[in-house]
């Protein structure tokens, strides 16, 4: 199975920050007014100019068609995100997007589970918000974080009616350990379940292993990017090709891939 979802047509966009919030220490969420970006599909990303040589790819945490706003939620990890975190309401950002292939909507006949770790959680909120109204039941959501203080968006998922399970590395909230425990449990109970996961690459590898044999497992990947549009071939991940392993581009073949497409080392 290959991700065939295609997003809205990408453009160069100038978008004004209309709201700024710090959901956790070292994390910032910015709401951007941009009707073009607001039409993105959950799992797509925006490529943000932050002053460095390269733009920074960030997924959408919220997409609001009617308000014409899109939000991004990111962790401060280096110069680019530090600059972006310093941006205040009213500032106009230089953006490219929406880019990449987003998540395909779940089949309403089967249960669905969202699995997010750290700053992999935000795009899953966009997905949950977009799909819950159209599906028979709200999702099961498994959230992982290093510690309780860094857990993102739990309340937002609960507000959608989701069943939320939390894991933390240090046990400061929910179950101690990683998201893989609760996921494996859920998979055992829902053999036709559909999984949507986003988080650090080692976590995604673990999700892929835990769901081996299952066919509706979708992973949103990260990789260092150059162009963001498929031109430079920088952002590749190892995938199964017709004649053995091939490198595929996260920016245009992904960022969402079927778990079975990928090769984790």
């Amino acid at each position, binding site marked *: 199975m290959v991700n065939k979802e295609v997003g809205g047509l990408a453009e160069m966009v100038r978008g004004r920050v209309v709201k700024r919030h710090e959901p956790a220490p070292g994390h910032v969420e910015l709401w951007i007014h941009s009707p073009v970006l607001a039409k993105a599909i959950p799992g797509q990303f925006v490529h943000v100019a932050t002053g460095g040589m390269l733009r920074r790819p960030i997924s959408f945490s919220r997409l609001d068609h009617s308000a014409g706003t899109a939000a991004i939620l990111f962790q401060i990890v280096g110069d680019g995100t530090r600059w972006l975190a310093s941006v205040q309401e009213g500032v106009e950002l230089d953006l490219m997007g929406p880019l990449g292939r987003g998540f395909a909507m779940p089949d309403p006949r089967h249960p669905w589970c969202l699995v997010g770790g750290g700053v992999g959680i935000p795009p899953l909120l966009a997905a949950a918000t977009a799909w819950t109204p159209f599906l028979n039941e709200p999702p099961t959501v498994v959230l992982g974080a290093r510690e309780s203080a860094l857990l993102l968006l739990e309340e937002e998922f609960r507000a959608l009616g989701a069943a939320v399970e939390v894991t933390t590395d240090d046990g400061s909230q929910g179950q101690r350990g990683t998201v893989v425990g609760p996921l494996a449990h859920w998979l055992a109970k829902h053999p036709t379940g559909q999984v949507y996961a986003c988080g650090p690459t080692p976590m995604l590898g673990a999700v892929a292993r835990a769901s081996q044999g299952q066919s509706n497992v979708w992973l949103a990947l990260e990789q260092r990017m*150059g162009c963001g*549009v498929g031109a*430079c071939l920088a952002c590749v991940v190892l995938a199964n090709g017709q004649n053995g392993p091939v490198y595929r581009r996260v920016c245009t073949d992904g960022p969402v891939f079927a778990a079975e497409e990928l090769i984790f080392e």
Partner: protein
Amino acid sequence: MNLEVQLPRGLRLQNPIIAASGTFGFGPEYASFVDIGALGAVSVKGVSPEPWPGNPPPRVWETPLGLLNSIGLQNHGVEVFCHQDLPFLRDTGTKVIVNIIGHTVEEYQRVAERLNAEKGVDALEVNISCPNIKEGGMSFGQEPDQAFAVVQAVRRVTDLPMMVKLSPNVTYPTVIAQAVEAAGADMISAINTVMGLAIDVKRRRPALGGITGGLSGPAVKPVALRIVYEVAQAVDIPIIGMGGINSALDVVEFLMAGAQAVMVGTVTFQYPNRMQEIIEALPAVLRSLQLNSLSETVGLALPGRVPLPPASEDAYE
């Protein structure tokens, strides 16, 4: 101002701004962001006779005003290129330069010959920075005799305008330039990326999957200008300059150093629109320097060509 550039074998560009190989894909990728038909030309990502897999990620890493890459020349091979990408490019109306690569002299020849069969290829750019697998992996562009051999072999099978792209990672770039001129190159493009490395201190290893990488972007501009300036004095064929160009003023530096046209690479990742902005700004920038044409600008800084300093130097500043 007329920005046309007339190059050998009838290659005429509507302006001197060319998208640099490897930074503009195989054609369609930037179509929704750039008016490709407005560019002087597009040099596509290196194309080999068969598909090449490329290097393990990470493949890019930022350095101070520079970019390291180790893409490893991943490409889907000349067959797929001809069927999938070339028709699109042909329709944009821009000139199409195909950057060709190979691991042996025969592989280079094979790509060039295959392209003879296609309409819409306006020129070849022979990228001699590829590892020569027969000679233990050192690049063709680092030894004059190997550079000569590749270029001569390609020249034998093609009548297309042919530029050869120089590596900066050599002791004497002018010697390589003279070798490829002697082998039949119509033009020289310079420079390819500068070999570099970064360490990912957290992971305690080289940052790039391919260990070393090629440095591009503003950081390398002085290196590129030095090579263009020296090569311009060493050969009689036109030079296409590149390396770190960000603005119309940067373009003027390359023109004065002896380039007839330029390629723009890394900056496109950040500002896809920058090439068009440069094309639009160039006439006014030239005029602000009391220059009225491209041709009078080319080589103005070369020895023996220095005019009197503009009168304004004597004014109070």
